[in-house]
């Protein structure tokens, strides 16, 4: 490909919290400022701005990209907002990569923000109007219900138990106990806690789900030749991929996320990854529900179909395991301000690959990581692969 190589050179994030006093643009500013400070840049160094944000309804501002622009450093600059539902945070990988790889910009600031607490009384109500107004809305579905259908389908197809799945929530919430920005870190949580939590829509229980959250994350991306002057440890974008399944969510394979596999294959091909289970050293798959981490590991070809629970039980996906999965604590532990949570996963790879993840640092010297998110009406897969080696 005749595009320029692109690196991540800085990252910053706010704490993820239940009800932030700060306005959405103030949250964006905190994260953006931190990201710039982390690599010693100012707004003068930034050529363009990439903003990602999920439904306008969350923050209660129709035209959220424009609303967030000043807090994202976009005054007087070319700015573009992308939105593919929950997949947006990781879609910012390809979004920012395009801006720089194309040659249009040497340095871009990439910002994700969500303030879900604005939606009153609960952010779930924002999702009532994402469904088809003719065939579905009269039945008043919400996301928890449709994911309960998917989780049950996944469990029955492969004979997976609730206990198998609860291990993921335990792992991620324990991992999050080491994250300074986390809202649900629980060092001593057990599988029994998850299995005894309130039933929301069977088989989904309270601790199977990530929380409603407010927060922002930003990263700085730079072109080859520029990145190396900003930092001696640029983390390179090695591959990006995204893919959309049918708009009829009811007609999808609920046991296996085909769209994630297609997005992953696109990214693996670009990154030159032939054996992902050997070549991906740290994974941040999207885990808004505990079963989704398993589902997504399978779609990413990092586990056989129906076998991801075994990897979890064997400790393979633990932070000190052979293939650490969600060492950040994920959405289940750190929190889930939708788009910010996705970009948090990309930022986590940046910190892990530079050895800067502190108490969360995975052992060894990981050279390549993968972040993945999922969204729209459970039909979009987005993938970003980062690595310490500059792509050839």
């Amino acid at each position: 490909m005749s595009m320029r190589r692109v690196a991540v050179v800085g990252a910053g994030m706010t704490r993820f919290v239940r009800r932030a006093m700060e306005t959405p643009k103030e949250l964006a500013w905190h994260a953006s400022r931190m990201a710039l400070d982390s690599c010693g840049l100012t707004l003068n160094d930034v050529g363009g701005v990439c903003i990602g944000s999920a439904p306008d309804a969350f923050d209660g501002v129709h035209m959220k990209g424009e609303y967030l622009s000043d807090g994202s450093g976009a005054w007087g600059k070319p700015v573009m907002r992308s939105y593919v539902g929950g997949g947006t945070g990781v879609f910012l990988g390809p979004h920012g990569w395009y801006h720089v790889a194309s040659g249009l910009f040497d340095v871009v600031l990439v910002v994700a923000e969500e303030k879900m607490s604005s939606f009153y009384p609960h952010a779930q109500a924002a999702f009532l109007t994402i469904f088809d107004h003719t065939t579905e809305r009269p039945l008043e579905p919400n996301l928890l219900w449709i994911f309960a259908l998917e989780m049950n389908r996944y469990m029955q197809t492969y004979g997976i138990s609730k206990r198998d799945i609860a291990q993921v929530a335990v792992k991620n919430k324990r991992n999050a106990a080491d994250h300074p920005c986390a809202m649900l870190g629980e060092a001593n949580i057990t599988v029994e806690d998850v299995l005894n939590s309130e039933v929301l829509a069977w088989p989904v229980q309270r601790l199977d789900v990530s929380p409603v959250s407010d927060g922002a994350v930003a990263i700085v991306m730079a072109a080859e030749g520029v990145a190396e002057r900003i930092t001696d440890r640029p983390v390179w974008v090695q591959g990006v991929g995204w893919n959309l399944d049918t708009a009829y969510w009811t007609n999808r394979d609920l046991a296996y996320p085909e769209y994630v596999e297609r997005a992953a294959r696109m990214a693996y091909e670009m990154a030159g990854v032939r054996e992902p289970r050997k070549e991906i050293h740290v994974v941040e798959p999207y885990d808004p529900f505990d079963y989704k981490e398993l589902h997504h590991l399978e779609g990413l070809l990092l586990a056989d179909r129906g076998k991801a629970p075994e990897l979890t039980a064997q400790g393979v996906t633990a932070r000190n395991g052979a293939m650490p999965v969600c060492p950040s604590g994920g959405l289940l532990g750190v929190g889930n301000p939708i788009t910010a949570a996705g970009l948090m996963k990309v930022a986590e790879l940046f910190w892990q690959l530079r050895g800067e993840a502190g108490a969360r640092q995975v052992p060894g010297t990981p050279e390549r990581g993968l972040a993945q998110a999922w969204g729209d009406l459970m039909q979009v897969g987005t993938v970003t692969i980062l690595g310490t080696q500059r792509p050839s």
Partner: protein
Amino acid sequence: MPLDPTLHADDLRAWYGSMPVTSRYTVGPAGERFFRAMKDAARILGTRCGRCNLTYVPGRLFCERCFDELTDWTEVGPSGTIEAVTVVHLDLDGALLEPPVLMALVRLDGADTVLYHRLSGVDVADAKIGLRVEAAFRRLEDRTGSILDISHFRPAG
């Protein structure tokens, strides 16, 4: 034929729906200070960016141009100058407004940004760019910490 217009919506299987949204907004740390000063003391506060030589009103937490945190609070107004004005004759539903409503952009003295607000107590013919105006505050007991604590702007003096 596809896309033939129908003038009889009631003959179709059509219905009314809504996209209900209720939001609870916060004003943020800078907004807390701005609106508290307006509510408690009928004072209008801005924040100053020394680097960019700009005073933002309402006071903001950060400068959008240089990204500095803004901590230098300063009082502006309550008088200012009309920068733009319009005479609104129809409301959002198309009903006639009688009398018409004046909406204006006001640059308060000491500010580099403008406020969008109502203009009252002036003949339409006199509502022109450059007119000197002042904020008319609601009474203390009626103020809630809202931009409507200024009920409108009126000619100064």
